[in-house]
């Protein structure tokens, strides 16, 4: 289950924080991807599959490493099938990642304080990076970015986001 706490609501930059993130990871045994795995999952580096509502369902963020946030039954079943076929392993990573959502015109500038955002992300839809001293997964959205950080970093990360946002808005 995901519960969202809006940290800041402001036109130019909103930051939302999602407390507990249900998620699953699939790790393919072989890379480059072969056979069914390559056919069924987004195989390009940094590729993201989205559902009809535009939500990301699969993020290919490492070689043969996929994050499935909030997977539905059908996706879980597909991944289990791949596991049974000996092509990879499914891991329940509920609680491992904490999700932030940045929207608004200032969100790019905010992230640019810590990483060359133009370089990392537009060439791909998701990227594994190191941001504000925390491991992070970046996902490009139409209105901004999703950022996943390991749960233990979430408090420090959120404090940094809020502080930077304050300074940028008042600059």
């Amino acid at each position, binding site marked *: 289950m995901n519960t969202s706490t809006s940290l800041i609501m402001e036109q130019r930059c909103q930051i939302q924080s999602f407390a507990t993130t249900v998620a699953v990871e699939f790790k393919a045994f072989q890379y480059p991807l072969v056979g069914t795995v390559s056919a069924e999952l987004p195989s390009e580096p940094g590729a993201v599959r989205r559902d009809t509502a535009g939500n990301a369902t699969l993020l290919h963020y490492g070689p043969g490493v996929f994050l499935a946030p909030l997977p539905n039954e059908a996706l879980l079943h597909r991944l289990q099938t791949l596991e049974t076929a000996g092509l990879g392993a499914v891991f329940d990573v509920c609680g491992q990642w904490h999700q932030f959502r940045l929207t608004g015109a200032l969100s790019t500038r905010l992230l640019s304080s810590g990483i060359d955002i133009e370089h990392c992300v537009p060439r791909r839809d998701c990227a594994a990076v190191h941001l504000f001293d925390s491991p992070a997964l970046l996902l490009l959205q139409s209105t901004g970015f999703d950022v996943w950080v390991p*749960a233990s970093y979430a408090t420090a990360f959120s404090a940094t986001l809020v502080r930077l946002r304050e300074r940028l808005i008042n600059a």
Partner: protein
Amino acid sequence: MTLRRALSTRRGHRVTSQSVSFQFDGREYTAQAGDTVASALLAHGVRLFGRSVKYRRPRGVFAAGPEEPNALLTVGTQPCVIPNVSAPQLAITPQLITRSQNRWPSLRVDLHALLQAGSGFLGAGFYYKTFMWPSWRTYETMIRHLAGLGEAPGAADIAPPHVEYVSCDVLVGGAGAAGLAAALAAARAGARVVVCEREPQAGGELEFETATIDEQSATEWVSSALAELARAGARVLYHTAIVGGSDGLVIAHAEPGGGAKDNTVYRIRPQKFVMAMGAVERGIAFVDNDRPGVMLLGAAERYLARYGVAVGKELVLFGNHDRLYASAQRLHAAGMRIRAIIDTRGDVSAVTIGLRARLTGMGVECLGGHAVAEVHGAHGVRRICVVDLQAPGTKIFIECDALLVSGGWTPMLQAALHDGGQREFAAQAGGFVANAQPEWRTAVGACAGTFELSVLLTESFRAAAQLSQSVGAMGVVGRAPVGRGDTAPQLQAFWRSACTRAQEKRQFVDLQNDVTVADLRLALSEGFVDIEHIKRYTTLGIGTEQGRTGGLLGAAIVAELKGEPLSRVGVSRTRPPYQPMTLSSLAGLNQGDALRVTRRTPLHAWNQANGAVFEPAEYWLRTRYYRANGTDAFTAGIQEATQVRAHGGILDGSTLGKIEIAGADAAAFLDRLYLTKASTMKVGRSKYMVNLREDGMVLDDGIVLRLAPNRFLATTGSGHAEHMLSHFEHYRALEWSHRQVAITNLTEAWAVIVVAGPESRAALIRVLGEAWHARLSGLTHMDFSVSRWNGQTLRVLRASFSGELAFELHCQHGIAVPLWEALVAAGLQPYGLEALDILRVEKGYLVSSEMNGEATPQDLGMDGLVNLGNECVGRAMLGRPAFAEPQRPRLVGLRACDGKSVIQGGAQITLTTTDTHALGHVSSSVYSPALGQWIALAFVARDRAAPGTVLVARDPLRGTDVDVVVTSPVHVDSSSERMKA
């Protein structure tokens, strides 16, 4: 305090009629909005801005930019001051307070200057030769008080900078004529362009140079160029100087208005970098050339054009090139009175003769083949002494109050000399220009030694077009801007006027550091012949202006003194940052609360609310002890440990590393990475396992659980989790990339609560409820059971790191706090790391102090595990002869012989109290409440490690020696009855 008001409103590019005020040395002055402190004070006729660093000579403004060597002010009041801020770059903001530096009691009357009767005392390197007897310390306080420039702040009041990472195709450094031409070419080609300009406006010398470009005036052309760049989406950053970088990264620093406020550090990665940072005007050395009122010619032009400030009433110009005349015409046209132009060149072209004639016609005396030999007027130029270079005996005295000097322009090579960039001597430029550069960088314009407008516009346009093409921007660029400005300078090198040997002490080369010609001569005579050595010995070229005005001048004079060509002498290398930055700017975002990242467990908030005292451990905040249990860590630790053994306790163990390994080959993979086999484990069981490094040393230990036939959970030491994950990932990639095994890190996903002590099982049964009763009662040592509690998954492992009956609860975040609180309510007291350490040392359990990378498994008493013979990483290296030597230390326990002395961690183990040969050392030591005395784990040479051996634990740092006796490392409950209850 009376307000000093200006006499009339000035007109200049950057000043408006709006009034502002500020303080300088306790007086308040008016100024116009847009003024800098320098322009405002000059407008008020202020001539003294500070005193020089060594000789405390009165000094005034010399330049109009970061090359200012003299007018460095302290901004603010203690404890929050910023020293050494260049007055020409300091914008006037409300309530601005500034002070001159390096003078006492006042700028006008400085006591230390009066005391320096003979300034020869403080020549170059004086501190290596004087103030030695009886020792340096005698003089140190006095020297430190006198030395340096400005005062350090007593407190930090500077907000962290903004930081921005920027990517672009073409970076252009400088928005002068060459920079704008280059930016236009790149933008038209379709490249993404970023331009960095250190001034608040674009244009560079076009600000005052009489020029037409593409049939527009210079100012109009600059405006239309900027408009075109804006339309093309190029970014122009003002107040932003390139300050350094390396390996393809360029760092730029934006400091709007000086004084380290609202500044931004840009980290730029361009595909191509066009360096168009121009050239800096330099002076000429003559006697007393440092007097207030001696100023760079271009600076005077800038003060006039930008701020409407006349730097003097009777001006004399002195230099060695044709631009003297163009400048003179501009100054004259603006109503300034020019008394004379002193031109060192005797043999000149027809063009020059014509220029001179025109100015003579305006009433300006033009003296060719002459040079200024000396300046008179300690607190400001009164008159100058001019000599005929052909007839050195003749002296002419000219009264004036400002002497504007120009000895030529030195290309700004700071960025071009980085990353393997080379320079070469260019005679026509009179100095050094950029030579071979890494393929992604090129120098254009004055920076490359091209001073003529018409030429540099074309050159930089074409260079940028080519660079843009090479990164794939193939748009049509059209033709280069066509322009005409001042005629070619026709410079003839002239570095210093002739003078006597004694007078060389007053011919200043580097104004900021008080380096004179005499100092250069002294350095050479003492054997410092390389320009880099001369720099360090004389301090030529250090400080805020990094030799901009004095570096090449000094090198040329060294060349003269050595009798060598300037091309061979060279110039010293400047160091980044090329303009001063505060430490706060350099630190970027990592300061204050964000100095280092902190990681928190799911139980952190509860711990914080309940008196936990935290200790940082590998970025985690871990509970060391709880305040309620003692006044300090030592007392609280003992209380908590006692409580665990007597009744029970709970520990937040969430930082424990957890790695899940899955796949048909997972078991075989773990067999390879652990000293003993994982494949023999049954599902539902766990095992204590040890990892070796490839050289055989113990790397880590932990419990491995078999969750399913093809799924394991490996736990690692808390501080080691990421390292062990990398270790696993390395071998998976190196040897197992075609097998069926995958790894993932689940350290954050599971909270871990350790429940330990004789009452632990009973309390756990009460809390978890009937559903768990049977499971818990039947759970044997190293078994685990998975089920649910309050709707979420819970895994209970029976294992112990305290030697007590204990359980490790792995649960998801949602139930972590409720479960913890329920256990507290059931009577279990939380304990922290301090107590954990006591409990584990009592049982001889290991942490990184023992598994320190120098201990083999046999050293740690794991012979039994080794003898099982599993072929794992590191095994092959265990058989090395040195590991069997009798003196090799192995793990033992120690107790104080007298039953009460403190055993110090790190103490060296010897045979006697006078022995200095160490047999080993103490790795962990604690006060054991169970035994009522200090106990330790230590490494001791095998041939001295028999239990009962009496040795000495020597602590040379604290000067204590304690007699100790060797025991088993398991101090308490050696048969482990409590744990297996």
